[in-house]
């Protein structure tokens, strides 16, 4: 078990290097000059050259890349071009907003998706099932930004029920959470339905009925527990992904989360911030995925015993 965790952690190292390289490379070839961004239009030639040297931009690509890695290994991710302060001083304050959004989104989408999926499966082919299946197909396929805009139009502009942007209170989170949760709830409902129907066909469900179990018990104790196995992985993955900040949602609803921060940093060519946040997010994502796998192995008896034997 610990061997497995260690192996997974070791595998992360080359992946992080690859991520760093790719982002570094992309930031290098995209248009826009950070010096110009910082100094504005028509700066004196001398100032430009000084700044280039100070930022190390006068050196060739691979030298810069190598230097970056060298510093990163010492956990020094450089200074933000804009604020001239250490990169993580800018990133940390954005994290709580993103974390809250992710927790709320995954909770809402999982609860909603699983419940609707069970209803659909238990009432297979009924009017309820057909309606749910059709609706979830639509919501699983609409573009994210469109849903954000529709929610704002309906609930803020027309009904004046909820604020359309900002972070003042928990009410500010309702629309962004809905916008992110609805599509994934729709997806989860479809998966849950399929899984439940598959499980309900199994022989052990008939065994449970033959014991005299009530239908409720058959569904919740015998079927759901089996059907939830793949759903745990999906919910865990979407939580890990949500921790990366949903850029579109955060941007549209004006939430100061990590996604939004990365977007503005990319626009400003603030390379150290982009690099730092990307590394931060990839580490979080990979650790989350490891935790999801461990949780899955813990819940699934077949895998659990295989682990403990190791």
């Amino acid at each position: 078990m610990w061997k497995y965790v260690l192996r997974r952690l070791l595998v992360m190292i080359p992946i992080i290097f690859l991520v760093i390289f790719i982002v570094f490379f992309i930031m290098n070839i995209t248009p826009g000059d950070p010096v110009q961004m910082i100094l504005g239009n028509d700066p004196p030639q001398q100032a430009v050259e000084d700044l280039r040297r100070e930022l190390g931009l006068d050196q060739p690509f691979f030298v810069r890349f190598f230097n970056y890695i060298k510093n990163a290994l010492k956990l020094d991710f450089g200074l933000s071009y804009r604020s001239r302060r250490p990169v993580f001083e800018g990133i940390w304050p954005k994290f709580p907003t993103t974390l809250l959004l992710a927790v709320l989104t995954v909770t809402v989408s999982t609860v909603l998706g699983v419940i609707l999926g069970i209803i659909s499966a238990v009432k297979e082919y009924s009017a309820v099932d057909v309606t749910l299946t059709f609706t979830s197909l639509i919501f699983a396929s609409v573009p994210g930004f469109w849903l954000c805009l529709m929610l704002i139009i309906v609930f803020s502009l027309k009904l004046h029920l909820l604020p359309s942007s900002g972070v003042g209170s928990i009410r500010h989170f309702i629309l962004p959470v809905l916008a992110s949760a609805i599509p994934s709830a729709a997806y989860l409902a479809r998966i849950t339905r399929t899984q439940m129907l598959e499980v309900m066909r199994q022989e052990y469900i008939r065994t449970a009925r033959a014991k005299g179990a009530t239908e409720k018990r058959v569904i919740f104790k015998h079927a759901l527990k089996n059907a939830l196995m793949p759903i745990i992985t999906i919910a865990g993955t979407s939580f890990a992904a949500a921790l990366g900040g949903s850029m579109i949602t955060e941007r549209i609803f004006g939430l100061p989360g990590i996604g939004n921060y990365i977007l503005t940093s990319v626009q400003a060519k603030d390379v150290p911030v982009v690099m730092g946040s990307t590394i931060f997010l990839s580490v979080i994502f990979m650790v989350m995925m490891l935790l999801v796998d461990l949780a899955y192995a813990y819940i699934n008896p077949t895998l659990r015993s295989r682990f403990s034997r190791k």
Partner: protein
Amino acid sequence: MSFLDIRDLTVVYTNGRETVHALNDFSLRLERGKTLGLVGETGAGKTTAALSIMRLLPERTGRVLGGSVTFDGADLRSLKEEEMRVVRGGKISMIFQDPMTSLNPVLTVGEQIFETLELHNIENRSHQQLWERVDEMLALVGIPPERKKDYPHQFSGGMKQRVVIAIALACSPQLLIADEPTTALDVTIQAQVLAMMDELKQKLDMSMIMITHDLGIVAQTCDDVAVVYAGEIIESGSFEDFFMQDKRRHPYTRGLFGSIPNIDSRERRLTPIEGLMPDPTNLPEGCRFHPRCPDCTERCRTERPTAHERGGHVIRCHLFEKEGE
């Protein structure tokens, strides 16, 4: 009236436009404490008969069109669902064909035995007492009680079937329906499991329906025999009627027993009879067996034979019409 008395049970499955006539006027009787062997080719309707007794036919497709099932004086078809739940697992238990799939993979075997006990805990025994009973049941089927904390995948096929048997017997049912309980197991394990079932049956004084297509199993374990063909019982009688005499015999059964000179023979499997079972969506007119019957007459093609009885030995065939008079 017999302990279990099935009369003219008619069951269909409807899938889209097709109607499968799985049971047609299926009649069967079983006395208390006896074992009945229900024999027939795959697709004859054996499992359907068992599921109909338990009222566990697939909800959307399977439907009982007529007939009655009386068990210990109670008309099972008219029981309310909650009354039926008391019967299931409490008074009648069923063992399914494939032990590999009939246990829930995410519950320990102990939990699965415990659940049955908890569902039928009429005497209000404490959890501790129920868990003691779990240990007892495991010991009874020859599994060390410590293994109650293990999951099904940690057991071999034969051991799983023992667990399934422990679940079925936990509440001391009056009737056990075993649907090909050993077909999925390899031969050496088959004998062990059968011997164990037989022993437990004596010990617990149960009635049993042993569904099988293995005549050897019938010869070893059964007091009575019934042969199913295309959803109807074409011959039924005592062990002696089937194994001790061979004058009175339905032409289909005669074919089945064709290669068996006596009980000790090694070739005890059903011998394939020429031709195929009729398509249950399109059963032949007259006698269901007539396309394959060597004794088929003109009458057999149009007129469905009725059941003719002599001394408890019932045969559904025109050839035996006159002898009862």
